[in-house]
């Protein structure tokens, strides 16, 4: 069971990393617009370009 002495601090460290990522994301405005980007990525192709049509 000695493995827990390493695993538990490791778990907390990983958790802290994800908290840091979350803080960064909020500061960076990643949550400001929850609807737009999901559509924007689909709209990048030009519709009229025959090459991109399936």
């Amino acid at each position, binding site marked *: 069971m000695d493995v827990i002495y390493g695993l538990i601090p490791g778990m907390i460290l990983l958790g*802290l990393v994800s908290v840091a990522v979350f803080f960064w994301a909020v500061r960076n405005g990643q949550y400001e617009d929850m609807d*737009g980007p999901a559509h924007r990525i689909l709209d990048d192709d030009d519709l009229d370009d025959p090459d991109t049509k399936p």
Partner: protein
Amino acid sequence: MAAVGESTRCFHCGLSAEVATRCEGEIQGVVRSFCCSGCRAVCEAIHEAGLEGFYERLQRREATLMPPPEAPADLDQYDLPEIQSEFVHSMPDGRREAHLLVEGIHCAACVWLIEKALGGLPGVDFAEVNLAQQRLRVQWGQEEVALSAILRRLAALGYAAVPYDTESREGLLRRQNRKLLFRMAFAGFGAMNIMWISIALYAGAFTGIDVEQRRFFHWVSFAIAAPVLLYSGWGFTVSALRGLAMRYLTMDLPITIGAWTTFGYSAYQTLWGRGEVYFDTVVTFLFVILVGRYLEAMAKRSASSATVRLLELQPRMATRLTAAGEERVPVRKLVAGDRVLVRPGDKVPADGTVAEGRSHVDESMLSGESLPVRKQVGDKVSAGTVNSDGSLTVEVAVTGSGTVLSRIIHLVEAAQGSKADVQQLADRIVPWFVLTTLILSAITFLFWFSKDFDTALLAATAVLIITCPCALGLATPMAITVSAGVGARRGVLVRDGRALERLADITHVVFDKTGTLTEGKMRVVDAVAVDGMEVDRLLTLAASVERHFRHPIAQAVAGDGRVKRYLDCQDAQSFGGLGVSGRVEGQPVLLGNRHFLEKQRVEIPREVSDIQQRIEDGMGVAVLVAVDGHYVGVLHVQDRLRDGADKLLQMLRGQKLAVTLLTGDSERAAARLVDQLGGMRVIAHMLPEDKSKAITALQQQGERVLMIGDGINDAPALAQADVGIAMGSGTDVSMQCSDVVLIGNELPKVSWAIRLGRQALRTIRQNIAISLLYNMILVPAAMAAMVTPVFAAIAMPVSSLLVIGNAILIRQRMRGEELRWM
């Protein structure tokens, strides 16, 4: 003769193209129909720019458009440095950046269109649309492109954009909410991790655990709980101490005492390597309380934005007439005695009197009245009102903070500032709750101290831990959040969650007349034809002439539902608000008031006077019609009652609420409305300032007032009232000042909203009762030193879950209410 199909849809927005405003345009070689010229212009601009992919994208998402908003006038002003300094951010490399609030964004296809179109403008570095907040961030080079050109481009595509200074408007509030979110997220992280450790400890307590491992788990818990208490719990600690310094027991005090004593006791246990620890309780407790606080903050609205919207109405630039000619100056530089030129479509820059010219001025923002008011030499005009047809020269009398508009802004600010935070139910209980807890804890300690110190400390702390006001902290925010959600789904948008509680014990309902109880739009309510003329024929003739004019009465006649088709009309001509004329099928047609027709040598039969008198007594407008020099009939044009107005008043009376009507019209006009709707008090001849004073007077009589309005002139009253409800079709300013917005303008929903408020208050009371009951059962157990960590870990969340569950039940309970009013 233009034939009209019944089911034509606008090629741009897809709405049915009504006869009155329909027009045709050629798009890529095909003639298409549009519901209005605005839609046609936008559609043409989109195709010219080669962005017709917009429509395909729109279709793919099955989204629908709306006709474009009216384009903001006078865009050139935004290029002036003194105006740009207010909202434009200059980069060190000479690029500029601004945030714009964009009206008219419907769906993701609009995002694509805006970004694509602006990105194509030379000099624009990037344009980024925030769909959720309807904002646009744009960066450009000042030398290559002017901001007005960017705004004009947006206007051509059907989007009205105004600069938006994010920092000054909501910077502080946003930073506070963000801090709260961080604190909540960190506590959440702590709670998740400490839970695993606790499960190991609880399992160990049952099956046996190595002493060394248990100590290790205790230390890990300590390592998680300490930063959570310091970071996430810091806000509570500070505000509790501040409250103590001001000798006031706040909710934060028991939270702080509970958290710190629990933590201190557990740390003490850990340090000496014995007994049980309660670190997990500290962390989950802070997390739950922070969730409640965050929900509360989300339900609150920012108070500042209303006045900012009002300021937006104030024109920034004026055309000053000097001996040398015209010059454009910022409004701030105008002084009394200056002469300014106000062209058609421009806003009047300052209060003053007309020195030259004659025109009609749209004063709807001040009076709520939709009909433009005639202005000639000597008449007074107000800043912010819109000049409609002729040019006016105005001699400035009052500028800046002295104008009527500024006074409204002041009133709104004053009302919002004076609205003391009504003590909420939970707040009133808290001091007693805190006091009782502290006393009980002290008694417990003294009682057990005579036996042994350890048990005394454990039992006293257990009292504090068990009474931690988790459920009490969630009681109000949960009920409010769920109720607001239920309201939003029914078209009742709750802007300030706390208003729901106030809505529950309203005693007096005050209505604005125009635009609220009535539609605020003119309609033909009756038509009388003589001389063998049929009513349909009369309306068709009138509509064929009137459709060439934009005056609200003309629009009412032209848009009448009984008109099936328009006849060709030549030489359509307007006589300055008195009447109009035109030639239909070769016959001259005259429409207007009696005076106008008599002047054109039309003989008016005597009985028409009676009809006219009756119409005008009710504040309607009588439009007399003559064909070929002979009087043929009269149209009764009037603002109509909104659907459901009578039903609402019936329901309000059923709920035993007093009703008052405020109107700027005469008593005579209001009396007619009262005849239709039944008993209510009427206060007539109301100026915008008087409306809020009337509300204050009611409040001083001890009434709790609900105000329902729609116009800018209602804004001070909406802010002053205990609860303000705005119509969704109303002005932005009125919505910003109100606590609740009726999205669909359905009046009966006011009554429903009151019932929703009552339901919310009832649920809050139940929730408080649940949490108090929980304490009454568990506190004796804690005082008897019978509470173990496992027991606490199970019992504490139960109370929170009960409160949350009870709040969610609001949905079911309101379902029954819905059936009652439908």
